[in-house]
C-alpha cells in the first residue's frame, strides 16, 4: 500500500536502501543486490567469531531496550546439550512504530538472512519469526521469502550446502500488544495466553519451550548483515556522537508533521534537523508542541528538550526521554495534551494482560481520571491521585506495561501541567484547543 518517500540527502540508507524497490522482495532480486553473501560468510566462520564481530560493532537492540546484541548472543552457551532457539520479535505494536513493517514488506529476504545468521551464531537450529496478526502484507512477503529460501536450499537441513541445519518459521500472532514483550511472545508462541513471565529465569537460561533462547528485534537481526559484510569498524564509525551508540537507526515518524514515514539516519544525528529539515517541519500554519521520540512508552519531550536532543540511546536520555523503538510521534499546537495522554492511557488499559493488580487496576483507573479531566470534570485532587497511582504502577509488576502507562502521565503532568490546570478550572477540551490554536 503506502509507498516510501525518496530518501532525503541527509539520510544514510543502509537497511532502508531497497525500500520501494519491488524486485528486492524476490530471491533473485535479493541475491543480485548482494543478498545471502553475509550468510555464506557467516556459515564459514565459527559462531563465537560472529558474536565477537557483532560485539565489537557496538550494535544494540533496536526494539526498545537497547541491550548490546553481541553480549546477548554470548549468553547462549555452546555445547550445553540443549536445543537453542532464536525468536525474532516482529510483533511491532508500540504506537508510533512501523519500521519493522517496512523492513519486512520491502526486504523480507534480509530478515530470513538475519535470522539464519543469528541462529547459527547462538547455536540454534530453529528460528521463529513472530509477526503480529494485523501485518497481513509483511506476513505474505515473509512467507514467500521463507518458501523461496527453503526451495533454494539456503535454509533447511543443509543450509547453503554446509551440512548445517537452520530452520526459519513464520508464526502469526493474533492481536495482543503485550506479545511484543519477550516472555509473553514466548508464551504466545507455545500456544498459551500471552502473559509475561517472571524473570529470572531469563530467556538465555530458560526461554522458548524451556530452552535457552535469544530474542531479537527485526531491525537488529537485519543490521547483522552489513556488519558482517563491512566489518565492525565500518559500523562503529557511523556515529556522530559517542561510542556507545553506533551505526544507523530507523525511525518511523508520524503525527502532525509534513512528511511522515520511515527514515534512516546515523546515531547522534541532531533531532532538530531531523524534525525540521529531513521530515519537513510542522504542517502549514501550525507549530510543534511536543514529541514522543520512541513510541508511547517513553517520556514526552517538550520542544526545548527535543530540539536539544541527539538521536541516540544516550542523547534522548539526556533530554528527558528515551530512544525506545524509534517511533517518533509529533504533536502540534492544535492538540490537547490531556486528550493525547488520555488516549495513550486508554491504549494501555486495553492492552493490559491483567495479571498484576497494579497494572490491571492502574491502567483503567488512570484512563478514567484522565478522560474525566479531558471532559472538564476533573478536580485538583485528581492530579495527585494520578501521580500516586503512577508511582504504584512503576517497578512493581512482572513486565513494564504498567510502567509504560505511568511514564507519559508523569512526564505529561510535569511538562504540560498548565493544560491540565486549564481544564480542571472548568474549561473544556474544545476551548483549550481554541485558546492554544
Amino acid at each position, binding site marked *: 500500500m503506502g509507498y516510501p518517500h525518496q530518501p532525503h540527502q541527509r539520510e544514510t540508507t543502509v537497511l532502508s536502501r531497497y525500500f520501494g524497490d519491488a524486485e528486492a522482495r524476490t530471491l533473485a532480486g535479493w541475491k543480485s543486490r548482494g543478498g545471502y553473501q553475509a550468510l555464506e560468510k557467516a556459515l564459514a566462520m565459527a559462531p563465537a567469531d560472529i558474536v565477537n564481530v557483532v560485539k565489537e560493532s557496538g550494535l544494540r537492540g533496536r526494539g526498545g531496550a537497547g541491550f548490546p546484541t553481541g553480549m546477548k548472543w554470548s549468553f547462549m552457551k555452546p555445547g550445553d546439550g540443549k536445543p537453542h532457539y532464536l525468536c525474532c520479535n516482529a510483533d511491532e505494536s508500540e*504506537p508510533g512504530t512501523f519500521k519493522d513493517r517496512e523492513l519486512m514488506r520491502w526486504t523480507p529476504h534480509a530478515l530470513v538472512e538475519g535470522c539464519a545468521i543469528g541462529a547459527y551464531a547462538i547455536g540454534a537450529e530453529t528460528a521463529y519469526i513472530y509477526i503480529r496478526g494485523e501485518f497481513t502484507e509483511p506476513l505474505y512477503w515473509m512467507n514467500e521469502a521463507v518458501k523461496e529460501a527453503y526451495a533454494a536450499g539456503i535454509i533447511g537441513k543443509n543450509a547453503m550446502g554446509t551440512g548445517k541445519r537452520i530452520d526459519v518459521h513464520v508464526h502469526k500472532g493474533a492481536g495482543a500488544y503485550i506479545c511484543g514483550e519477550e516472555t509473553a511472545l514466548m508464551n504466545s508462541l*507455545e500456544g498459551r495466553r500471552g502473559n509475561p513471565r517472571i524473570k529470572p529465569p531469563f530467556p538465555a537460561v530458560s526461554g522458548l519451550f524451556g530452552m535457552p533462547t535469544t530474542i531479537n528485534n527485526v531491525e537488529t537481526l537485519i543490521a547483522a548483515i552489513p556488519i558482517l559484510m563491512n566489518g565492525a569498524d565500518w559500523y562503529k564509525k557511523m556515529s556522530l556522537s559517542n561510542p556507545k551508540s553506533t551505526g544507523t537507526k530507523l525511525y518511523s515518524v508520524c503525527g502532525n508533521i509534513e512528511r511522515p514515514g520511515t527514515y534512516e539516519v546515523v546515531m547522534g544525528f541532531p533531532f532538530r534537523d531531523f524534525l525540521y529539515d529531513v521530515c519537513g517541519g510542522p504542517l502549514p500554519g501550525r507549530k510543534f508542541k511536543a514529541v514522543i521520540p520512541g513510541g508511547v512508552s517513553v517520556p514526552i519531550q517538550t520542544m526545548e528538550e527535543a530540539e536539544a536532543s541527539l538521536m541516540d540511546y544516550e542523547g534522548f536520555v539526556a533530554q528527558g526521554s528515551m530512544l525506545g523503538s524509534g517511533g517518533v510521534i509529533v504533536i502540534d499546537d492544535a492538540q490537547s495534551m490531556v486528550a493525547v495522554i488520555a488516549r495513550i492511557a486508554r491504549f494501555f488499559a486495553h492492552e493490559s494482560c491483567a495479571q498484576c493488580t497494579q497494572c490491571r487496576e492502574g491502567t483503567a483507573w488512570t484512563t478514567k481520571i484522565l478522560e474525566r479531566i479531558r471532559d472538564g470534570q476533573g478536580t485538583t485532587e485528581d492530579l495527585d491521585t494520578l501521580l500516586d497511582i503512577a508511582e504504584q504502577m512503576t517497578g512493581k509488576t512482572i513486565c513494564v506495561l504498567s510502567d509504560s502507562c505511568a511514564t507519559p502521565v508523569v512526564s505529561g503532568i510535569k511538562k504540560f501541567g498548565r493544560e491540565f490546570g486549564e481544564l480542571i478550572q472548568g474549561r473544556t477540551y474544545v476551548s483549550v484547543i481554541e485558546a492554544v490554536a
Partner: protein
Amino acid sequence: MIPPAVGGLESPDYASHDHTAHAPYQPVFSAGSVARKELDELIPRYPQKMAALLPALWIVQRERGWVSNEGMAEVAGLLELTPAYVKGVVTFYTMYHQHPVGKYFIQVCTTSPCGICGADDVAKAFLRHTNTGDLGVTSADGKFTVIEVECLGACGFATPVMINEEFVESVTPDKVPEILARLK
C-alpha cells in the same frame, strides 16, 4: 387465561434450544481436507503440539469466518488439549472472532498517533455510511462490522483501516463512501 406476550420479549424464531434444530457441526480438519494437510505440516515445526494452537485457530477462522465453541473443541481434540484451555487462549487475543461478523470486517485505528490526525472522525464516518449504528454491531444486511482497533502499526499513513485482510491507508472521512462503494 395466558396473558399476551409483552412486546419485544417473545422468543424470536431462531432462538431454539433444541440442538437437533441446528445443522450438525462439520469438522474443519476432516481427513483429506486442505486444512488437515496444513495442520499436519505445521505441527512438526514445533517441539510441542500445543504450539500449533494459534495457527490452527487461524485456519478455523479462515474456513468458517469465526471460531465457534465447536471449532475450539475440534482444535482441542487434535492438539490434545481441553476445550476450556483453548477457550482461555482464544479469549486472550483480539483477532479471533467469537461470533460471526459482517462480510467486511472494518477495523479503524484510533490510537494516539492516528487519533491526533483525525481518526475518530474516520471511525464515525464508517459507522454512519455502513448504517451499523455502533461499534461492533453488524449491519442488518450482514455486510459490515466496524470496530476501533488499537494501533495497526501503520502510523505514518494515518488513518489506516484494515478491511478483512487488506490495509487501506491515509483514509479521511470524505474517502469513506468511495471505499465502501468498492465493497460489494
